[in-house]
């Protein structure tokens, strides 16, 4: 498949670029942060994202979604990255929608996906248990009890957990030699007895809750997919999320870079535009190349997911690793080249650096994905 966007994808790109720039620019992030908004995002925006078809981008048309696939999802999240727009897009529309669309029962799909596509229901994924992403390390237990299971354990870094109407929880239903075996995914209502959700505000003004499950009772019908076979679903969802995070970081990097190049053309020091200093020119030119490399790797990963390639995890890790490094470099260079003003809260560039760090950390950083890449190459 050629590494270019097709016509449909270019339309998605144009509409996403326009939409987020006008409806959810960085100033909205600043406002929501400063007023310590209870949700941490604007529900009006989220509703509009449903109207645009964005909330249902990864949901099949038969369940009310747009069924556009991962390249389209990535283009939306790239625009989100350019504008630092806040919404439960990643948690609900990408991660949870992928799990339900792939592994949900007909009843679960019919009950949940249309509402998710319509932005009437937010579903969050509770997977991580340690500070560093290790998806197979699941200590949360699901013991058979009543006509279902009783869940106990603590989940950290549950993106948008504080606003979730439903949680998807990974828990261990049996022990096995291989850590990846014996994990089951459950739909959990956060209002159930034995579930407590505490919001944590992060450096990038996004939220990731801690979810404590203390003998919470769920029904057999709340199992997603097969008992003990949840890891495959989980990895598929995580890879979709990682590829979209790569796209978001690409957006963060590209926008920081564009802002910096503009600044280099305006700011004067020592009687000339600082953009005329060759040392800065060379660093900017190098950065340009790096952003282009991140773009290629990201597009390839998203395409591989859409095509269902066996090598998709390989390309996803490549994209997440490369885009993570590039976003880190681009935002740090942006702050440095802006000098003092880049360090002030009044100026937007710092928000990009914060988001680059958080997105880089989410679902595996460059070290994680570099190691995964090496393992996938049998190395």
């Amino acid at each position, binding site marked *: 498949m050629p590494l270019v966007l097709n016509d449909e994808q270019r339309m998605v790109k144009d509409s996403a670029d326009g939409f987020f720039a006008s409806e959810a620019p960085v100033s909205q992030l600043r406002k929501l942060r400063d007023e310590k908004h209870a949700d941490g995002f604007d529900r009006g925006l989220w509703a509009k994202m449903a109207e645009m078809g964005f909330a249902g981008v990864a949901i099949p048309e038969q369940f009310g979604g747009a069924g556009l696939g991962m390249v389209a999802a990535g283009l939306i999240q790239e625009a989100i990255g350019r504008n630092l727009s806040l919404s439960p897009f990643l948690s609900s529309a990408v991660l949870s929608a992928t799990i339900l669309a792939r592994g949900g029962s007909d009843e679960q799909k019919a009950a949940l996906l249309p509402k998710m596509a319509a932005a009437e229901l937010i579903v969050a994924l509770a997977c991580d248990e340690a500070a560093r992403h290790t998806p197979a390390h699941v200590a949360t237990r699901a013991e058979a009890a009543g006509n279902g299971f009783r869940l106990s354990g603590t989940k950290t870094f549950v993106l948008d957990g504080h606003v979730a109407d439903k949680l998807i929880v990974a828990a261990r239903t049996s022990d096995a030699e291989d850590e990846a075996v014996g994990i089951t995914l459950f739909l959990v209502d956060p209002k159930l007895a034995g579930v407590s959700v505490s919001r944590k505000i992060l450096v990038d*003004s996004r939220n990731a809750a801690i979810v404590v499950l203390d003998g919470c009772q769920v029904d057999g019908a709340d199992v997603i997919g097969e008992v003990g076979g949840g890891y495959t679903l989980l990895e598929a969802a995580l890879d979709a999320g990682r590829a979209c995070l790569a796209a978001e970081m690409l957006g963060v990097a590209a926008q920081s870079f564009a802002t910096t190049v503009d600044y280099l053309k305006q700011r004067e*020091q020592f009687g000339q535009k600082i953009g005329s200093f060759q040392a800065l020119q060379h660093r900017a030119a190098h950065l340009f190349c790096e952003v282009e490399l991140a773009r290629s790797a990201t597009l390839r990963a998203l395409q591989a997911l859409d095509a269902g390639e066996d090598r998709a995890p390989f390309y996803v890790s490549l994209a997440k690793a490369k885009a993570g490094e590039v976003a880190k470099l681009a935002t740090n260079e942006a702050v440095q080249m802006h000098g003092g003003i880049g360090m002030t809260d*009044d100026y937007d560039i710092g928000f990009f650096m*914060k988001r680059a*760090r958080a997105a880089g950390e989410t679902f595996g950083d460059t*070290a994680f994905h570099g190691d995964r890449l090496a393992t996938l190459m049998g190395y």
Partner: protein
Amino acid sequence: MTDTDFRAETRAWLEANCPPEMRQPVESDGDVCWGGRKWRFKSDAQKIWLERMAAKGWTVPEWPKAYGGGGLSRDEAKILAQEMQAIGARSPLSSFGIWMLGPALLKYGNEAQKCEHLPKIARGEIRWCQGYSEPGAGSDLAALRTSAVLEPGSGSGPGGDHYVVNGQKVWTSYADRADWIFCLVRTDPAAPKHLGISFLLFDMESEGVSTSPIKLISGYSPFCQTFFDDVRVPKENLMGEAGKGWDIAKYLLTHEREMIGGMDFAATGRDALHQLAKTALGDAIPGLLRADIVRHEIDALAFGLTMERVKDEAKAGQGVGALSSMLKYYGTEVNKQRQELIMAINGSDSLLWEGDTKHEGDMAKSWLRSRANSIEGGTSEVQLNIIAKRVLQLPGA
């Protein structure tokens, strides 16, 4: 007194006089005493410790006794520092007066200025801030435009007794908590850029001075914008000659560079990064992260040894000189990298910003704070320019 005697005596005095509370590790901002008229001591112990040390002149051990210092030799000062470190004694007083203005006053101030200002710095009575950068004159410091005009004289004299200062400074550290400012001003607008600058000292309570804190991306506000609106400053507050302020500024910048470059490494009990990683992650450290940590430690250790070597060479009179830019540049880059790795080691925990637990947000704030290291006190780019020009003597640099 022999060094051995001095050590024994010092040890005994510290044991007797350093309050137990002042031997606890510094935990929060208020634990570090900055002095000044607005300072509120966090505890009696903090106040007593400052008074006792100031009485011996040991807030500034190497300054002359006549100006409130301890009159110690370099070796004695080293022993004092070692003995303080041995019992975990906190520094009794931190201030820009001690680190920056003091050395400049000793070199460039007249006798009256030294007698007036140095003892107050030593006793923590007056807290100073630095008025250097201006909007539009960041790295290009000498492009500053804050003006100081001598008032017309009354009658036949050559001019009045006061300068009238107008303009705006930015990045003034803790201007809102400082009592006095040492300030670069343009006294001769007609002279070439570097020659029309003078070095002025004045009280921040003077009429026409106002400050406005700048909120940083870390959420902290250690810097202010500072505005001068017809501020009248007595002529005798000029330090050095009029128009020679740039020399003093350069001297001071050198001090500042060394301070910032060495800051993190001077910190007592700095843990090696691999220890932090082992504590946080146990033995299961991802291969690529381990490699990054090892490479960082190689640079950090070699840099630490270089700080040591530069000091030792200076003492032995063997130094190559002009190395403060190297220390500033490399030290801040190493520190930034270290903060980046601390974030990586701690994964999603490092991202916490606000929350109920005590230290939540500290890690991210330190990381963000460190980003400024390579900007403040002369950017990394300016340091590299200086090395290219002064050390390597490259053309047109």
